[in-house]
C-alpha cells in the first residue's frame, strides 16, 4: 500500500493524538458496557493502569513478545474485577461505585510507594510495540462485537435491567450474571487499552490512572450517551479533540469534563446522541 506524502506527514505530526483517540475510544466502551447494565464502575482507569503496569512489566522484565503481552494484559484487571465485583454486585449500585473509586486511589498509592513499580517516576523505556492498526483494529472489533451483542437477546436483557432491574429479574434475566459479565468485559477492554497506551508512549506513571482519568472516562460515555456502542466512542473523540482545538483552555480541560458530567446527568439523560439501536422483533 502506498501512502501519499501529505498523509504520511499528517500521520506523523498527529501520531499521539491519533493513538489517544483510539485508546480513549476503547476506554469509553469499557465504561459503556457497565453503564449499559445500569451499574456505575469508576474502576476503568484503575483497570487500565493494571493492564498498563502488568504489560509493561511483562515486556521489560520477562522480555515477552507483544503478541503474548497484549492478551495477557487482561488477566490482572480481570482478577481485580472479580475480587471487587463478587462482593459488591449483589449489593446496591453505590457499593460498586465506592469500591472502584477506592481501588483507583489505592493502586495509585501502591504504584507510588512500591519500588518495583518505579515509584513516582513510573516505568520508562517501554518499547513502542503497539501499532496504530492494532489500536483501531481492536476498537473496530469491540464496537462490532458490542453492536452485535446489543442487537441480540442479550442486549435486550441488558436494556431491560437498566430500565427496571426487578422487572427484568422477574422476567427471567439472570441479573447477577449479566452484571458480572459486563464488569469483566469492561476490565478486559480497559486492560487492553492500558497495555496499548503503555506500548505507544514508552512511559507510564502512577498519576495517569488516578481519580481524574477515571472521571474523564465517565464523561466520555455520558456525553455520547449509551444508546449504541458508537455513541460513547464519539463522546470520547469530542472530548479528546476539544482541548487540542482550544489550546488556550487546556488548563480548564478537567473543569470542562466535570461540568459535562453534571450537565449530562441533569439535562441530557440520554447523552448527545440519543438514538437507539434497532432490533428485530423477538
Amino acid at each position, binding site marked *: 500500500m502506498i501512502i501519499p506524502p501529505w498523509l504520511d506527514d499528517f500521520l506523523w505530526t498527529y501520531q499521539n493524538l491519533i493513538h489517544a483517540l483510539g485508546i480513549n475510544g476503547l476506554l469509553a466502551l469499557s465504561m459503556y458496557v457497565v453503564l449499559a447494565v445500569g451499574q456505575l464502575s469508576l474502576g476503568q482507569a484503575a483497570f487500565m493502569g493494571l493492564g498498563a503496569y502488568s504489560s509493561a512489566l511483562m515486556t521489560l522484565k520477562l522480555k515477552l513478545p507483544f503478541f503474548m503481552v497484549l492478551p495477557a494484559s487482561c488477566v490482572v484487571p480481570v482478577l481485580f474485577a472479580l475480587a471487587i465485583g463478587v462482593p459488591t454486585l449483589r449489593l446496591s449500585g453505590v457499593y460498586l461505585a465506592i469500591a472502584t473509586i477506592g481501588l483507583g486511589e489505592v493502586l495509585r498509592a501502591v504504584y507510588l510507594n512500591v519500588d518495583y513499580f518505579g515509584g513516582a517516576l513510573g516505568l520508562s523505556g517501554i518499547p513502542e510495540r503497539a501499532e496504530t492498526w492494532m489500536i483501531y483494529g481492536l476498537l473496530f472489533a469491540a464496537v462490532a462485537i458490542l453492536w452485535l451483542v446489543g442487537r441480540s437477546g442479550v442486549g435486550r436483557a441488558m436494556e431491560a435491567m437498566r430500565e427496571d432491574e426487578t422487572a427484568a429479574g422477574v422476567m427471567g434475566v439472570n441479573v447477577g450474571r449479566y452484571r458480572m459479565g459486563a464488569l469483566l468485559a469492561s476490565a478486559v477492554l480497559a486492560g487492553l487499552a492500558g497495555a496499548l497506551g503503555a506500548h505507544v508512549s514508552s512511559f507510564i506513571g502512577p498519576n495517569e490512572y488516578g481519580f481524574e482519568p477515571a472521571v474523564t472516562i465517565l464523561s466520555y460515555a455520558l456525553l455520547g450517551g449509551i444508546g449504541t456502542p458508537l455513541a460513547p466512542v464519539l463522546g470520547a473523540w469530542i472530548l479528546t479533540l476539544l482541548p487540542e482545538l482550544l489550546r488556550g483552555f487546556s488548563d480548564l480541560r478537567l473543569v470542562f469534563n466535570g461540568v459535562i458530567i453534571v450537565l449530562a446527568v*441533569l439535562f441530557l439523560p440520554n447523552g448527545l446522541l440519543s438514538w437507539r439501536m434497532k432490533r428485530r422483533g423477538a
Partner: protein
Amino acid sequence: MFAQQLVNGVLLGATYALFALGFTLMFGVLRVINLTYGFYFSAGAFIALFLTRQAGFGIWAALPVAAMGAGAVAVALDWLLLSRLRRVNAPELSSLMVTLGGVLALYSAATSILGPDIRRLPPDLVASDAFVLAGLRVTTAQLLILLATAVMVGALMALMRGTRLGLAIRAMAEKPDAAGLMGIDTGRLAALVSFISGCLAGAGGVLIGLNFNAIHPYMGEAMMLRGFVVIIVGGLGDIRGALIAGLLLGVIEVFTAGYVASGLKEAVAFAILVVVLWTRPSGLFGRAVVRRA
C-alpha cells in the same frame, strides 16, 4: 513503642471519624453518596489558611468560622447539584455521578486558581510543645483534634437523640415522603443536614491540615478513601459505627506503617473494605436492611 503507636493511631483515627461522620450523616439522611464531600474538607482548610494568614485569626476563632464556611459551600453545592434530582426521585447512581462530575470540576478549578503547591498554617498557631504523660508523647495539635472530635461527636449525638430537630432528621432518614406529610419541611432540613455535614468536613480539614501541616486543593480527595472505608466498615448511615470504624482504621494504619511498610497503609485500608464487603456488607455493627441515621 507499642503504647505510643496505639496513642498515635487513636488520634489519627479521631480525625478519620470526624471526617467520616458528616459523610455518613449525609448518606443516612439524604440517601446520597455525595462525592463533593471531600471538597468541603479542602475548603475548610483553605478558609482557615486565609483567616490565620491574612486576617490574623487565632485557631479558636478560625476553626468554627472555617467549619461554617465549609458548611455554606456544602449547602450551595447541594442546592446546585442535588436538589433537582431529589425532587424527581432520581436513582441514587445519578446523584452519585453528578457529584462526581462536580467534584472533578471543583478540584481542578481550585488547583488552577490556588496552585497545586502545599501550603502551611502559620507555625505559631498552636504551641508546638508536646505533653509527656507516662512516657507517651502527645502534641498540642493532637490534643486539640481529640478535644474537637469529642465535642462535635457529643453535640451531634445530642442533636440527633435529644432534640425535636434531631427527631425530624431521623424521621426524614427513615421515610422522606412520610416525614413531609407530617409537616416537616424536607427541603430546608436537607439544606440543614448539608450544612452540618459541611461543618464537620470543614472542621476535619482544618484539624488535619494542622496535624500534618500540609494544605493543598486535593487533600480532600486523598481523604475520601478513608471516608469510604470508615462508612462501609461502620455501616452506611450509622454514626456510632463510623466513630468506631474511624478509630479502628487509624490504629490499623499506624500499626501497618510502623510494623509492616508505610507504603502499604492505603492498601491495607482497602483490603479491609473489600473483606467487609465480602463478609458483612451492612457494616460491622449493621443488621441486614435496617436503616439508621
